[in-house]
């Protein structure tokens, strides 16, 4: 199979390449990159072979495939919510060619058997690169460390009890210490569950107005502060998941200034939506940590700009419709994010918060550095791992068109600017040029 892109704007922060180019992919490998000064008319060979695709990429961008550091693929155990097959296909549709899947499956990914299962399933049925994240503690119970070194050996790239915080500080300290021998970061879901209690949205005027129990910002911030201090003390690499508050940003800024080895991520919903989104008890906007206020949102945007937040991750959390079609208090937390995350993030470019290059770094170079994974980027001889994007194309989100089984999105029917048109991952590709 031959895929040829003509006159594309190549922008690859991994290889630090930028410019107009023709790119040829032969059987999943980039065989030729021709950088050029100006676009040339597309030369069709007229072979008409179905083994060849010629794509006029004039005005379009080619980026390296995006990496999602925070995905819930749900398999094994919750295949009614999502499977490795559907989740990785949703990834390709959203422009992601690599996803890191969280450990809160059933059984929990706290032993190599589960990791092998995930990797085997991904090889058989998956469409993109699957990088498992192992549990910090056995059964996500926060009591005993899981076999982190063996999990690493089996293929886990990081460790997290995501969904559950590690409440016991001594366990978190040991995990950070132990991780140094393994060379993989500890990803912390920062939440003091005593402070969250049975809260279901951000605590403030609106939660009182709606009669819903609030989750104070402090619930996240006290754990961010604790974990920063533990990282400082142990020198273990801490990565803070889904930052949602201004206070967390301030703490992370302080920690980075001190040279503490921490990194951080946020998700598109935290810089796109505020708590106002749950005003009508919209369960599709119920997420943990909860959507906050305008002030938090603006601070998160500037933190992305200033590099205080390194990564944009989806926290793709698909759920079955029955788990969302209930009164707000009873609905499960989570947003199905893979298929909207990149387009939502492009808003940051259109509004001038980030340059296009900075945005792509948040999805590629930063995760690569944090996870210490190898990605060659777009270069001759490398496996094809790239996406074609029209950053100006307007399209309407339709949850029913999601390939993810999770239709739980607060962005349904939103018009977004910027769309992934074509994703190539090795020999697999997804052509979305004719999608509305």
């Amino acid at each position, binding site marked *: 199979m031959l895929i040829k892109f003509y006159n594309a704007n190549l922008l690859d922060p991994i290889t630090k390449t930028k410019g107009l180019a023709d790119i040829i992919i032969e059987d999943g490998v980039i065989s030729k990159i021709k950088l050029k000064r100006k676009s040339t008319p597309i030369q069709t060979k007229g072979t008409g072979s179905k083994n060849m695709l010629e794509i006029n990429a004039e005005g379009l961008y080619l980026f390296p495939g995006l990496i999602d550091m925070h995905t819930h693929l749900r398999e094994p155990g919750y295949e009614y919510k999502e499977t490795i097959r559907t989740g990785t296909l949703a990834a390709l549709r959203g422009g992601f060619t690599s996803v890191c899947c969280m450990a809160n499956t059933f059984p929990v990914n706290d032993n190599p058997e589960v990791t092998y299962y995930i990797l085997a399933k991904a090889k058989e049925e998956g469409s993109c690169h699957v990088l498992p994240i192992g549990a910090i503690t056995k059964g996500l119970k926060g009591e005993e460390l899981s076999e982190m070194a063996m999990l690493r050996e089996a293929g886990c790239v990081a460790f997290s009890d995501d969904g559950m915080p590690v409440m016991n500080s001594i366990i978190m300290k040991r995990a950070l210490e132990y991780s140094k021998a393994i060379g993989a970061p500890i990803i912390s879901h920062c939440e003091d569950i005593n402070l969250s209690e049975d809260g279901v949205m951000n605590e403030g005027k609106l939660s009182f107005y709606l009669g819903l129990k609030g989750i104070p910002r402090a619930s996240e911030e006290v754990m961010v502060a604790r974990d920063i201090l533990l990282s400082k003390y142990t020198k273990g690499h801490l990565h803070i998941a889904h930052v949602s508050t201004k206070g967390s940003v301030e703490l992370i800024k302080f920690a980075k200034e001190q040279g503490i080895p921490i990194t951080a991520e946020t998700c598109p919903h935290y810089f796109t939506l505020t708590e106002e989104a749950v005003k009508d008890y919209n369960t599709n906007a119920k997420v943990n940590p909860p959507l906050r206020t305008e002030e938090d949102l603006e601070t998160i945007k500037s933190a992305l700009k200033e590099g205080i937040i390194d990564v944009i991750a989806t926290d793709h959390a698909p759920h079955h419709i029955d788990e969302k079609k209930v009164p*707000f*208090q009873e609905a499960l937390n989570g947003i199905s994010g893979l298929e909207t995350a990149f387009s939502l993030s492009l808003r940051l470019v259109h509004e001038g918060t980030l340059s296009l290059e900075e945005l792509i770094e948040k999805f590629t170079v930063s995760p690569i550095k944090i996870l210490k994974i190898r990605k060659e980027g777009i270069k001759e001889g490398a496996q094809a791992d790239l996406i074609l994007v029209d950053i100006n194309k307007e399209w309407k989100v339709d949850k029913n068109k999601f390939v993810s089984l999770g239709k739980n999105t607060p962005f349904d029917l939103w018009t977004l600017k910027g769309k992934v048109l074509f994703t190539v991952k090795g020999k697999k590709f997804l052509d979305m040029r004719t999608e509305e």
Partner: protein
Amino acid sequence: MKDLIGIKELSRQDIEEILNTAKAFKEVLQRDIKKVPTLRGRTAINLFFEPSTRTRTSFELAEKRLSLDVLNFSVSTSSVVKGETLYDTLKTIESYNVDYIVIRHSSSGAAKFVAENTFASVINAGDGTNEHPTQALLDAFSILEIKGRLDGLKIAIVGDIIHSRVARSNLYLLSKFDTEIRFVGPPTLLPQEIPDNVKIFFDLQEGIEDVDVVMILRIQLERQKGAYIPSLKEYSHFWGLKKELLNYIKKDAVVMHPGPMNRGVEISTEVADSSQSLILRQVTNGIATRMAVIYMLNPKEV
């Protein structure tokens, strides 16, 4: 109007209309024949996921006075215990062709959820800590009977504000009139961020000084467990309304309580049974107010 989900959604005019209708129904209730035939042939169901004999009885009486056929459906007798979702319960009930659903549920937003998923008219009889609109309406009705107006009044709501749907509905109702609203109680039971038009008092005596109406909220006996308050004894000592304190409110001020009361905790017996207490009047007015609400709603034609 199809449903009554909350006071939030009502205008001042809606409220006044309901209160005027309630007044007419109260006159009916004082006659020998207390029934009106208007809604004969229609059916109401009282769907109670939380036990509440008082509210259910009040609704049931209101429904019967309107000549409605009445069904009662409560948690202990339903399949809900077996894990049926609210949506499924609703669809089952809908297939009985009911015209009115009165719902009490422990989840905030449950009444709205039900209203969005049924053709029947839905009346919120209390959803979680969100709203209890008929309580606020009957409270307003009772105040009006005594004071003749809501505008210009000073009202103190005392006690467990954050967990109280009664407090919220009253806040939203009174906010639509020209009133001064005070929240009084220990900081752990007051909202973290205060609504713009509310004054906060930690001290009971200061909080009720010179007010026209004191609304006492029921304190849940288990609040001690969540460390909201150290003990009921301490709560009662500092925030229980006792006889001596009546000297600080206006001479003609009234005291209210949505019931059921914990006598000797949030309110002393002397106060509850005093001439300034509207507590029994609230119960009586509950029926007329609920009749008015049901009467004014229009189920969707299928």
